[in-house]
């Protein structure tokens, strides 16, 4: 890792390499013995192509849920972050309680809670997709607000004072002075958060909301080809997620 260290490490003993080789050989032998070659030979990935339309539909629902998380998260999160700067202690406490509640419990629990408790409390029966949308929007608002709050607090105090000295109304102060630089500095973090919600949509499959993971599960149960289908799902999630995160990296470097 350090340039100077390389000179010292030249007299490294060959035992490390031997150990690595031995481990690899052991893993190789074990794999050879235990791998189910018959099944491996009979893998048939054409099933993925046969069900491409269903999978594409599932991916659409996944992207829809990701978009909901991003948009609701950003708007509600910004509102929550602005409220967290309120002069009223009560408002601040309510916001903190909301954010901490959603950040410190698993989304799976929130999701099932919303699905079962909302009909009981409001008498409004939600479909799985509606419950999923509500849960992911609520969770996203809590996570986004935390990032936007960080952005708002990084705006120098002088900006607030200048806006106050100029007698700008609160709306202009927020809309023109505080939020633009706050959000701009947070763009990479916000995109990263959206990517992690892209991953989190797969959790909604426990309610069968017919996003990519639900569809994969269903097809795999119907045709009993779990390896082909789950691998395909993993590849789809990986390719999309990887492209998005590489773009964010570019964005971060460009910003610097």
């Amino acid at each position, binding site marked *: *890792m350090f340039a*100077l260290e390389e000179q010292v490490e030249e007299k490294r003993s060959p035992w490390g390499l031997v150990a690595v080789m031995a481990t690899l050989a052991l893993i190789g032998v074990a794999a050879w013995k235990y791998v189910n070659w018959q099944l491996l030979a009979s893998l048939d990935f054409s099933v993925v192509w046969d069900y491409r339309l269903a999978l594409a539909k599932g991916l659409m629902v996944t992207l829809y849920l990701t978009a909901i998380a991003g948009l609701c998260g950003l708007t509600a999160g910004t509102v929550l972050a602005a409220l967290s700067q309120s002069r009223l202690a009560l408002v601040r406490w309510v916001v903190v309680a909301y954010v901490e509640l959603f950040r410190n419990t*698993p989304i799976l629990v929130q999701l099932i809670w919303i699905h079962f408790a909302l009909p*009981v409390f409001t008498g409004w029966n939600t479909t799985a997709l509606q419950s999923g949308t509500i849960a992911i929007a609520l969770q996203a608002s809590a996570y986004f607000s935390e990032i936007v709050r960080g952005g708002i607090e990084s705006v120098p105090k002088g900006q607030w004072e200048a806006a106050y000295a100029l007698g700008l109304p609160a709306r202009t102060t927020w809309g023109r002075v505080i939020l633009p630089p706050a959000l701009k500095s947070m763009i990479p973090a916000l995109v990263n958060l959206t990517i992690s919600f892209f991953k989190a949509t797969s959790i909604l499959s426990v309610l069968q909301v017919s996003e990519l993971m639900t569809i994969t599960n269903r097809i795999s149960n119907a045709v009993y080809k779990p390896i082909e289908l*789950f691998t395909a799902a993993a590849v789809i999630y990986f390719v999309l997620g*990887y492209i998005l995160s590489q773009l964010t990296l570019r964005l971060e470097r460009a910003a610097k």
Partner: protein
Amino acid sequence: MNFEIQHLVNNYPLILQGLLVTLRICAVSLAIGTVLGLVACFMKLEGRGWPYRFAVAYIDFFRTIPEVVLIFWVYSCLPLLFSFRLTAEASGILALSLFASAYLAEIFRAGINSASRGQVQAALALGIPVRVIWMRIIMPPAIRRMMPALVSFLSELIKATSLLSAIGVAEMAYQASVLGSKTFAYVEFLSAIAVLYFVTIFPLSLYVRRANQKLAGKAGH
């Protein structure tokens, strides 16, 4: 709507048992994940060659695919590919270990990279052995710097264990949904486990916030 606390009073041992399973799974996958993560971290620190490329691919892959996909893949595909049986809990632990190792590798790497280059060069110039440099100069500040990220990952891991209920591991979320379907008291049981998760995870978040403030304060001076 009436909140029937009686259901909770009757069934709390099962919920607490679920909490224990949750914590046990966390501890085991954190331990395995640390070992795998350290290996991946040092391979990535090489900076070139095939171990480096393998580590980069490994870390990127397991950080990018959703945990649910990984859990289902390990649970339903591994036993088919290899002719051995894994219990649901074992495959859950394996999936979470892989997930943890990728994240921990990046945390370790960031910690080690934050070591002061000047101090290491000074130590090398003084002829201090590499092993001692690692133990005395690189590791202590690295550990201090990576604690907040480690603890915040631990809270992510605790939340992720709830996903294992989908493959029937008897952890807390699973117990709650089973009890819920038995008694139709979903709201009671889900609220109870939400409180238990919160009580477990909130102290960790508080610590992370404090530690980050402390680190930021130190950097400011």
